[in-house]
């Protein structure tokens, strides 16, 4: 969409969906690279597969809805949705889960609600939640972080696992996979182990999970670049990370043996990815500046609640979807005052 600008010497950047989405993709690159470094070729295969499925489903739905295909395909929104889905799933997820999740995300969560700009829920997160709920076993198959210099599986082995479900000879799933740091903490605390003992075990690094802390740092870097480019605003990430930091800090101070420290929370799982790339979704998130702050804070609180007391070890997707439901209400009560108008509720007396 282009708006004409009149009078005054403005320097206005051309803001199209395509441009914004392209910059979001650039912002995702460091985090994606970090994930590929630690988890191997599977991450890149998943990204390619998910993007291909997203584009195919988008084209199909546009044709079914008799909408022009070219402008909507080239706006890259489907690419971003597929990419985000691929970053959320384990690196060796079988291909059919990606197919089901992304196709559901694009067909049901996006196009049945009216397409780009009308979806009340974040499509990528809907796809992820559908996959997590429907295929709980396959969606926990995370592998311990290695490095791409010395990957756990070669490229062809990765393809074999993802597309044919065949592990290299002599290996079993139990030997290959390991719990993520968040999983480890949740199950360890459930067994009554003290937190210090859990943290001494293998999957942990300096502040959070080994590998995971660097991945989150890379997503943070990409997110800060997006902020710098003014593709996103600061309110939603600040709200989410701030709320997560405050609430987890509070509980950590009260009982350090039962609650991980706030830095661990910020650099674990999908915290940074969620804060900068998912909670900032302009369509399904809140639209007003104050609203975004509240929206982000809600996501942060829910993430802590789900991580601490929920059935799932990571809760970013559920938190975002729950707050998506609240977004219209938040918007209604946080509309900025128009200059010269009284605030809401004072009009009658005025």
């Amino acid at each position, binding site marked *: 969409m282009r708006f004409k600008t009149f009078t005054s010497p403005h320097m206005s950047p051309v803001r199209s969906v395509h441009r914004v989405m392209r910059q979001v993709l650039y912002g995702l690159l460091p985090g994606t690279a970090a994930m590929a470094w630690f988890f191997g070729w599977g991450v890149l295969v998943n990204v390619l597969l998910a993007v291909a499925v997203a584009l195919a489903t988008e084209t199909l739905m546009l044709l079914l809805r008799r909408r022009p295909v070219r402008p909507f395909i080239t706006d890259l929104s489907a690419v971003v949705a597929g990419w985000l889905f691929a970053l959320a799933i384990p690196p060796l997820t079988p291909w059919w889960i990606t197919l*089901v999740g992304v196709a559901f995300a694009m067909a049901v969560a996006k196009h049945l609600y009216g397409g780009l700009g009308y979806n009340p829920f974040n499509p990528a997160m809907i796809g992820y939640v559908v996959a997590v709920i429907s*295929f709980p076993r396959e969606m926990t198959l995370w592998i311990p972080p290695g490095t791409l210099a010395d990957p756990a599986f070669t490229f062809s082995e990765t393809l074999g696992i993802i597309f044919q479900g065949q592990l290299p000879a002599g290996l079993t799933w139990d030997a290959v996979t390991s719990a993520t740091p968040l999983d480890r903490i949740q199950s360890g605390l459930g067994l009554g182990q003290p937190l210090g003992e859990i943290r001494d075990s293998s999957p942990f690094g300096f502040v959070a999970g080994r590998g995971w802390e660097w991945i989150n740092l890379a997503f943070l870097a990409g997110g800060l670049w997006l902020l710098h480019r003014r593709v996103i605003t600061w309110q939603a990430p600040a709200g989410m990370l701030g709320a997560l930091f405050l609430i987890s800090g509070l509980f950590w101070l009260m009982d350090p043996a039962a609650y991980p420290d706030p830095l661990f929370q910020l650099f674990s799982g999908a915290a940074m990815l969620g804060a900068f790339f998912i909670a900032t979704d302009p369509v399904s998130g809140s639209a007003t500046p104050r609203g975004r702050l509240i929206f982000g804070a809600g996501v942060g609180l829910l993430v802590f609640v789900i991580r601490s007391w929920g059935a799932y070890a990571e809760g970013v997707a559920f938190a975002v979807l729950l707050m998506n439901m609240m977004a219209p209400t938040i918007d209604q009560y946080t509309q900025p005052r128009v200059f010269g108008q009284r605030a809401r509720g004072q009009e009658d007396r005025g």
Partner: protein
Amino acid sequence: MSTRSYRRIVADGFWYNNPGLVQLLGLCPLLAISGTVVNALGLGLATTLTLVASNLSVSAIRNWVRPEIRIPVYVLIIASVVTAIELAMNAYFHELYLILGIFIPLIVTNCAIIGRAEAFASKNSMPRALVDALAMGLGFTAVLVALGGLREALGQGTLFAQAHLMFGDMARGLTLTLVEDYRGFLLAVLPPGAFIGLGLLLALKNAVDEHLERRAARRRTAMAEQPQT
């Protein structure tokens, strides 16, 4: 009463005023029990039976019940009918009864039933009330079974699983396995699958209606043009 009006009652029950697809009544059992075809069929037939008994009784006493107390009277009738059906199911289809659980006694609160008593049976003769009960009940059952089939096929890859609960041991072979080694799609089995499935069925019905209407409109214009030529 002409056969034409009976046909209208039947068409209303199955399509134009279907309790599941148009009135959207009785959604609680519709969404909760439509996990498999057999469960859906069991609950649908129990609901139909309740509807027949309650519609007949309400229609029979419609001239003696004072309007001020009609709702409590209907509730009493429906509750006693459901209690009888619950006991009967417990006796003859015990395993199915255990699966359907709380949803058998909850037929009492199915608004479709008291809705038909109030909207139809209390104003119509007994034969008409009977036809209405059968049409509405079987229409509701049809939606339940369609949704149950959709969810069972997607969720477990089978159809008519556990058919012996309803039809006895002879029916064990009735189970169709659509996909061998199906890994299961839990979303369809869980409650969200019911909501999404019902939404898709509603969309399908609306699409069919729209298509029929467009065809009827085309035929009307064709007939209107014909005499002039």
